[in-house]
């Protein structure tokens, strides 16, 4: 067909010949689109249908989570943690994500999601290994079905897709839930992961915790999309927008998404609207990019307060229950403090132990070198102690006899 002919056919109403069927969109996007308003349960007429047991459980976990965040933040001030990205204000997302998973399912957290790992049952000390600076991962991922906390943004998302896909290939009933921040949705890996997940119909759920900022950059400078949940539609998966401080609403939306994935219904993208009450980390100065008034507004919409209101209305918030919850949280915090106040026992030889399954000759040489250095250090320390014991305070030099023994 020539250009002229195409022009001619325009008058008859079809400028282009109809595309072959394979070119057409495969699904009607309407059912995939998120609602304009975030989904809420607390404070709505539907709140009455929330199970009382679930409400009290969520409350207890939120209180515990808040205490955990406070304790971890305090530990940074004491120099016991190298850094802590707090999830204060975001506890509902963390707790709900952990709670909707079955034992065999997998969680793929980022650096901000230690609370989700703890809520899934991981020992808080193990969860904080990375942030403490004692190795990178403090637990066996297979034992807990929690992937290592991921620092490069969004890179854990394709891992979640691959794992879920592999599980399905093997015929196992496993769902993967991956956590990512609003900033992380701009990364290429976010796109690639969602696209793979939808094409493969992998049993995976993506939870975007939209807490308003990527360090200092507000969402408006991150994305021009109507919502981050809208991004789902282009991949061919449903997008859900939910109030990220409404724990029961999150629990319901995530629970449905996980069960849909389990049934073979494919992936879902959930965007939770929440707020980071603390700074990005203890090293960040949030006053440079946001006002205290804004933070105050969000304090009004606190995830614990929201559940508390519902429990009070139902008469479930008894003094006894509140006390027991607080005591439990205090106990957890005290245990965490105690453990973190002990210096971890680190073996420098571990540096070479886990690079390859079989150590290379080069690493064996380097291991020998380090061992000699350590022995020299120990010998020097011994001499210093001897001298100190004799009242000689001059001390020795760092270079010892062992150094000369080296080939």
């Amino acid at each position: 067909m020539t250009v002229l002919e195409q022009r001619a056919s325009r008058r008859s109403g079809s400028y282009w010949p109809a595309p072959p069927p394979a070119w057409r969109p495969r699904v009607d996007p309407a059912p995939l689109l998120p609602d304009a308003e975030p989904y809420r349960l607390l404070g709505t007429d539907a709140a009455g249908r929330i199970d009382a047991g679930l409400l009290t459980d969520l409350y207890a976990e939120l209180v515990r989570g808040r205490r955990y965040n406070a304790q971890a933040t305090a530990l940074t001030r004491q120099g016991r943690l190298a850094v802590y990205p707090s999830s204060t204000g975001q506890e509902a997302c963390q707790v709900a994500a952990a709670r909707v998973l079955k034992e065999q399912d997998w969680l793929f957290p980022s650096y901000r999601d230690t609370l989700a790992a703890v809520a899934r049952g991981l020992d808080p000390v193990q969860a904080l290994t990375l942030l403490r600076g004692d190795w990178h991962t403090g637990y066996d991922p297979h034992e807990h079905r929690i992937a290592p906390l991921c620092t490069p943004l969004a890179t854990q998302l394709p891992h979640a897709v691959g794992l879920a896909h592999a599980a399905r290939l093997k015929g196992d009933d496993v769902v993967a839930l991956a956590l990512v921040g609003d900033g992380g949705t701009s990364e290429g890996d976010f796109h690639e992961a969602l696209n793979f997940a939808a094409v493969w119909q992998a049993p995976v759920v993506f939870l975007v915790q939209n807490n308003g900022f990527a360090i200092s950059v507000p969402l408006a400078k991150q994305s021009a999309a109507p919502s981050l949940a809208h991004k789902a539609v282009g991949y061919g998966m449903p997008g859900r927008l939910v109030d990220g401080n409404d724990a029961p609403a999150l629990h319901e939306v995530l629970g449905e998404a996980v069960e849909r994935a389990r049934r073979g219904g494919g992936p879902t993208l959930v965007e939770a609207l929440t707020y980071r009450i603390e700074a990005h980390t203890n090293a960040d100065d949030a006053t440079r990019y946001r006002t205290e008034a804004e933070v105050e507004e969000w304090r009004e919409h606190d995830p614990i307060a929201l559940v508390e209101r519902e429990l009070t209305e139902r008469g479930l918030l008894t003094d006894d229950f509140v006390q027991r919850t607080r005591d439990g949280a205090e106990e957890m915090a005290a245990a965490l403090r105690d453990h973190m106040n002990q210096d971890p026992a680190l073996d420098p030889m571990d540096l070479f132990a886990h690079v390859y399954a079989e150590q290379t000759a080069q690493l064996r040489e380097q291991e020998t070198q380090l061992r000699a250095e350590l022995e020299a250090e120990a010998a020097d320390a011994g001499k210093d102690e001897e001298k100190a014991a004799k009242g000689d305070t001059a001390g020795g030099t760092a270079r010892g006899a062992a150094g000369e023994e080296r080939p």
Partner: protein
Amino acid sequence: MTATAAEAGRKPASMAQALNRALRDAMADDPAVHVMGEDVAELGGVFRITDGLAKEFGEERCGDTPLAEAGILGTAVGMAMYGLRPVVEMQFDAFAYPGFEQLISHVARMRNRTRGAMPLPLTIRVPYGGGIGGVEHHSDSSEAYYLATPGLQVVTPATVADAYGLLRAAIASDDPVVFLEPKRLYWSRADWSPDAPEQVAELGRAEIRRRGRSATLITYGPSLPVCLEAAEAATAEGWDLEVLDLRSLVPFDDETVCASVRRTGRAVVVHESSGFGGPGGEIAARVTERCFHHLEAPVLRVAGFDIPYPPPMLERHHLPGVDRILDTVGRLQWESDWTEGSGD
């Protein structure tokens, strides 16, 4: 003809066929082995290395992925976490770069960060190198990026037998292997029978391909045939060159390399990738540190120029050829140059 037709049919004639056979045997032996990448299923890969695998094992075992290198590597990480042994194909050397983030931040580190709890048995096949007349982004030699990354093994066959043996070994390894396929040698042929002994090679062992007394050419991958040719040509000038094929850049076989250099007293490293910051510098340094008192001359390098890979019509000037190797070998007569005062 005494061999049966079936046997003759099974006999791979080219490196491409040996690689294909290695994948097929690995998949047949272990259901955990999954092949994935761009165009690997129906098409069999742009170089046909995965030809027939989808048909034989189904698309679940040899499947086309969306066109996304980070996605391919990232999902392969998750699959390996769950106990599969993915073998991924990067279509061309320079198209692997979008996947580097996953490769460096995750593939190379997962064992280490989990203190051994989560090893990743993952093979990343990358056709690499020039000499095929490819346009831009189809001829890079990226090995320096890979070998600078602890946690990765970097392997590259130069012979048909090694293409089979080393790929089987890579897939069997419990750690990630970047498997660099010299695409220029895909169609090189050899009398090789899969029934020959020692099919599955050992990673981290160099091989001497030609014995010699006067100097060692240390090389790998696409430069091996060039070095062997140079060694033959050098006999006319009275040089008896040893040619050493590294086969594996990580782990590096110091032992075989240094034993050879100590015997010959002279060494030249030959590779296609750029010299500055390239593997040759590392190899020369290692050899010098270990064999200094045996060396009659500095370790010299013949490498590609320090330029972005040139357009195909000019690539022959960039790639180390026989003449450039021979010129460099000539410079190994360091002592006589020195005493004559010509130096370098």
